[in-house]
């Protein structure tokens, strides 16, 4: 813990400084989304990354926590209860926990496909009931609240998103800290053990079901906290926040970021939030890009972006990282050419009569020249990548082999 103190301080500092840099309404809005999604993705990682439980229905706990939080906001507004807005995430967390205790009591008996299927089934059931029980879930329009009615918190009434950001950042920090600490406890470590080898875990005295159940409850709790933050931030919640799409999205985040690493889901949440809020403004095809990126990640970076960074650990430890910079750059140039060409082709094929502005060029779908330019670009790029690959591979091998030799020498 002591060794990591600088990391945590840096994290806290980043949380404080970021809204000063990205201070537009949009910037704050994106940061707010990130706080929510990071907590949610981390909680998902407790299941899949640390506990080996593949869930297709994690949004249930997020959503239920969120719904109850919005109802709590309304109770506060109606002065039925007196409660500080700042503590609403606890309401969400409690609801997430209760739901997880209930559902986990029968779903954690098995992991693997059985668990995954139960989570899918439960998810669909809850979504369906959310449309049936319109009083609680508000039908397809959801329920709305207002965060400004509670007793002010040191004079802050949370009128502005920026004020909400700091509340979210506080909870993000707390939740991240607790989730990290959880991995350092007997229950957290045994979750890893059960993930790795459930059979052996039983023979060292642990009920795998109980171990999974505890992780499951903790994941539900933090998902609920994220749901509570969602409620404060958006002051409303709808059925879509507990459906399969949201569950799939958090799976995507955790996976793209890297399941095996604590920081992975954070990376994934940041990447996906940015893509979702920025890319969609530039291209109707952004979901296609997202899908392609996801598949490529599964195929070529099975340990996600965090895993990719961690791959360089050996090279780093032996101060050979520098060897890789040039080969990376050399590959990056044709790669970006290829990407530019590829994206251009996709966009152009969807332009119809419109003109595609492309690095100062105006491309039209009915001009063969336009297609030619893009195809050449993509082709040259692909060829360039192919040609530069051997060099990159050699450099990679060199950086790591040398590292191994040095290791051997030390022994």
């Amino acid at each position, binding site marked *: 813990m002591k060794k990591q103190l600088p990391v945590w301080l840096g994290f806290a500092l980043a949380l404080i400084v970021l809204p000063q840099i990205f201070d537009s309404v949009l910037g704050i809005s994106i940061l707010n989304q990130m706080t929510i999604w990071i907590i949610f993705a981390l909680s998902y990682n407790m299941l899949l990354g640390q506990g080996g439980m593949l869930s297709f229905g994690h949004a249930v706990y997020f959503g239920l926590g969120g719904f109850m939080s919005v109802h709590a906001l309304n109770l506060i507004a109606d002065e039925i209860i007196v409660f500080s807005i700042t503590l609403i995430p606890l309401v969400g967390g409690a609801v997430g926990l209760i739901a997880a205790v209930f559902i986990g009591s029968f779903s954690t008996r098995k992991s693997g496909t059985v668990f995954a299927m139960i989570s899918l089934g439960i998810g669909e059931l809850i979504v369906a009931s959310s449309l049936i029980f319109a009083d609680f879930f508000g039908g397809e329009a959801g329920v709305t609240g207002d965060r400004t009615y509670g007793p002010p918190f040191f004079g802050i009434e949370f009128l502005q998103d920026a004020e909400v950001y700091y509340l979210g950042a506080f909870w993000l920090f707390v939740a991240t800290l607790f989730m990290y600490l959880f991995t350092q406890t007997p*229950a957290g470590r045994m979750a890893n053990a059960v993930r790795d080898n459930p059979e052996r875990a039983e023979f060292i005295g642990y009920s795998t079901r109980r171990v999974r159940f505890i992780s499951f409850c903790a994941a539900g709790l933090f998902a609920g906290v994220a749901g509570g933050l969602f409620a404060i931030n958006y002051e409303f919640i709808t059925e879509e926040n507990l459906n399969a799409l949201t569950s799939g999205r958090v799976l995507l985040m955790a996976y793209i970021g890297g399941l095996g690493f604590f920081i992975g889901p954070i990376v994934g949440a940041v990447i996906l939030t940015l893509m979702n809020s920025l890319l969609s403004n530039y291209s109707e095809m952004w979901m296609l890009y997202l899908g392609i990126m996801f598949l490529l990640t599964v195929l070529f970076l099975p340990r996600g972006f965090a895993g990719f960074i961690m791959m360089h650990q050996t090279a780093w430890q032996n101060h050979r990282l520098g060897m890789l910079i040039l080969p990376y750059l050399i590959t990056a140039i044709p790669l970006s050419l290829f990407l530019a060409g590829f994206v251009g082709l996709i966009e152009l094929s969807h332009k119809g009569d419109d003109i595609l502005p492309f690095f100062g060029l105006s491309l039209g779908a009915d001009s063969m020249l336009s297609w030619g330019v893009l195809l050449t670009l993509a082709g040259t790029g692909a060829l360039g990548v192919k040609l530069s690959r051997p060099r990159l591979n050699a450099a990679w091998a060199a950086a790591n082999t040398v590292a191994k030799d040095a290791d051997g020498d030390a022994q």
Partner: protein
Amino acid sequence: MSLLTLDSVCKSFGSTRIINDVSLDIEAGEKHAIIGPNGAGKSTLFHLISGRYNVSSGTIGFQGKAIHNLPPYEIARRGIARSFQVTNIFPRMSVFENIRCALLWSEGYRYSFWKLLGRQKLLNDKAFDILEQIGLSDKAQLPSGELAYAQQRALELGVAVASGAELIMLDEPVAGMSNSEAENAVALIRRITEGKTLIMVEHDMNIVFDIADRISVLVYGEIIATDTPENIRGNARVQEAYLGEVPSDA
């Protein structure tokens, strides 16, 4: 009173009877070996005792209490630890974590999620002690899946004995090892089972006769003899049924 008592234990899969009316008493402190030809049901017997399988009939008692048909973790908590024929560790966790996890229950940590492992000095020291004993202290932080085979077997032993169980069951602990590795392993087994009760399945007769106080011979799911090594060597039925098939490298 015996530490472990098997009374008329039977196990069938479908219509096939694998273990047939096995009765056996193991005394506290005894080093007991189970030998027998391939497919005799030795591993099945281990699985019955350790709770991986439920018995079809009969009873198993440990320290005077029935343990048959309890889940494996209940049996483990009562002081029976076991290793596996095929290495069965936590491959993505470090060597140190493997041992520490194996220690957790016996050290009373149960499912606690409020204690930080990094701060449990006693626990960590103990884990390092075991690493020292099994000769893996210099690999402590390596993911255990990356260990060499013999080292993984050593870790397998370490995980089995870490809990300080009263009864330790080892399933072919030296299978697949070279001679020198096997020697080290035997020394290790002696060291770590010092003062404990041991049941061991092993094909290597030198090791069996070297370590065991008593030997049971299992053939086609039945125990045909239980006796001291000397008497087993001279037992005609054992000769007939089994010793002709001793692996050549024995």
